[in-house]
């Protein structure tokens, strides 16, 4: 009997692009594996926490889902995960990694196959040192993920701060911030402005005549937004645990198949979702989910071919992995990312220490 996996993700509204990538990559993985171990049900959460909770309830209660996945946003994950794992259902995160679930709040039924939120920004801070930046202007929206981003960056960045600015969530005009950057005397800029905010900022930055190097985590420069940012993004360094040009067998096959199937390059969200699917498949192949303990052990083993190359879990069931610096380049007129360096090797998040699990 196939195991029912519920994929709850954002398919409508402003953030729909990310959810579509997650869904498409997950389906692609199942297709490529040719396995019938999984019966997949997909549902749209509309980027609203209370919807996600309801859908999770339904998937578990009416459709007998034993594994859930798919959520993009930290606030939705925070709403869904504790309730789901309390019912002895496995949740595997293909994207969000809020700190509350990585530290003291870690639980055996929760696996994160993507990253812990802070780590991407920590990598940016670390790589800023490598690039020799001394005086950075840092900026993020004023909400928990934004605060985490700046905290993460500062944790590893050794230079001074020329300015630290919080923008409004959903802000569309950044002229005031750009003026501050211009006047700040910084030698570099770190930004975390996901989705439309990043697109707006980069467009306006490119026209401002300010010409400082930008470093960022992958969110602002992932494949889903790059076409919309346009040439303004060229040359920006951004950190991620994956890049489309990674040269391992699994990744080459994935990128080719994704392009073939959907006519576009995969984003980092797609890659994480692809790994999530394969991780679950590998565990299902090794253990029967009716024996939850055995299944969890098989998950922890993470015995699958990750598109990131090496992949393993730490004690808090979050990845210990490499983080790379990528640069936005144009290949045959298509904007994409290319690895230019490594920020961290085998990096684990700081919250793992607070997690009571072995």
């Amino acid at each position, binding site marked *: 009997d196939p195991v029912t996996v519920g994929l709850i993700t954002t398919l409508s509204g402003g953030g729909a692009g990310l959810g579509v990538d997650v869904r498409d990559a997950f389906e692609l993985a199942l297709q490529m594996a040719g396995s019938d171990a999984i019966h997949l049900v997909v549902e749209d959460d509309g980027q609203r926490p209370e919807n996600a909770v309801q859908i999770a309830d339904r998937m578990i209660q009416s459709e007998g889902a034993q594994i859930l996945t798919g959520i993009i946003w930290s606030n939705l994950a925070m709403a869904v995960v504790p309730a789901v794992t309390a019912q002895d259902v496995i949740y595997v995160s293909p994207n969000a990694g809020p700190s509350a679930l990585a530290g003291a709040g870690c639980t055996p039924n929760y696996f994160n196959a993507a990253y812990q939120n802070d780590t991407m920004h920590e990598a940016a801070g670390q790589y800023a040192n490598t690039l020799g930046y001394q005086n950075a202007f840092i900026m993020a929206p004023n909400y928990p993920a934004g605060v985490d981003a700046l905290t993460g960056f500062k944790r590893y960045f050794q230079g001074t701060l020329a300015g630290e600015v919080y923008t409004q969530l959903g802000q569309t005009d950044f002229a*005031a911030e750009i003026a501050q950057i211009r006047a700040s005397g910084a030698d570099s800029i770190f930004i975390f402005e996901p989705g439309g905010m990043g697109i707006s900022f980069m467009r306006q930055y490119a026209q401002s005549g300010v010409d400082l190097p930008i470093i960022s985590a992958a969110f602002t420069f992932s494949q889903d937004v790059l076409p919309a940012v346009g040439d303004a993004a060229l040359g920006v360094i951004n950190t991620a645990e994956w890049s489309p040009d990674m040269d391992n067998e699994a990744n080459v096959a994935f990128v080719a198949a994704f392009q073939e199937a959907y006519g576009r390059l995969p984003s980092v969200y797609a890659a994480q979702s692809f790994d999530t699917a394969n991780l679950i498949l590998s565990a299902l192949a090794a253990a029967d989910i009716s024996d939850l303990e055995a299944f969890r052990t098989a998950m922890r083993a993470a015995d699958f071919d990750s598109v990131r190359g090496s992949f393993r879990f730490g004690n808090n069931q979050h990845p210990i992995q490499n983080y790379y610096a990528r640069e936005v380049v144009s290949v045959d007129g298509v904007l994409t990312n290319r690895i230019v360096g490594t920020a961290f090797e085998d990096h684990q998040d700081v919250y793992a220490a607070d997690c009571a699990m072995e």
Partner: protein
Amino acid sequence: MTAALLFEQFLNGLQFGLMLFLMSAGLTLVFGVMGLINLAHGSLFMIGAFFCAAAAGLTGNFWLGLAAGMAAAAAAGALIEVTVMRRLYTRDHLDQVLATFALILILSEGTKILFGPFPLYLDVPPLLTGTVDLGLTPYPLYRLALIVAGIGVALGLWLLIGRTRLGIRIRAGENDREMIAALGVNIRALYTVVFALGAALAGLAGALVGAVQSVQVGMGEPVLILAFVVIVIGGIGSIRGAMVGALLVGVIDTMGRFLLPQVFALFLDPSKASGAGAALASILVYLLMALILVIRPKGLFPVHA
């Protein structure tokens, strides 16, 4: 903090204000002059941006895109007026709220079906790229162009509404629709035209602003709220009020975002200060509106009815 920075921020505030005016111009026309609450104004804005981006992408010409964006929004507006709005003029505002709320859902989802879920690309036309030196500071040419467009639209609207017979008839229709018809004016057709014009202005704003922002589904909603704030502050139906409201919101918002964290930094550590400052800055506009309405319950320039 230097004089140059202050000057630039003030300029940014003015420019943001004019951009807000551009975005609210169509709304003032439809809401203030025709007396129709149109929550779908933001969706028309989005349609303008999407069609502009698509057409510009196809033809490689921004100006063709701009025309396409305006035309698409105007066409959508005319269609909406004929099929929906026409039946709602005599109803109370609540019915209009519900109908246009429904239109938001339809137009957003329709746009997604048509253009896909990913943001589109729309670049500034080559003619308007780069910066100009304003003495104290360099300034993006495109933003100057937005300022000019905002002032142009304001002037045009002011002339149209205040100085032409068409404007007189529209305002007469707002006062008493049945009566102006009984005097021989085809108010139905006139309202279709006006609504389409309002939609075209929304489309124009969407297309212009789309080149510096993200062209994506849902881009209209934050605009909608800000546009309402602007025209309510100014006094509904007053073009002058909308202009003053827009500039006030633009300057106060920009200055607040810039100065509040520095004020908080006087007594908080920098990281906390920027967080607290940003939090206060994000509600500043609403605080301003509430304050103005408490003092002047009908806005700054109420239109006597």
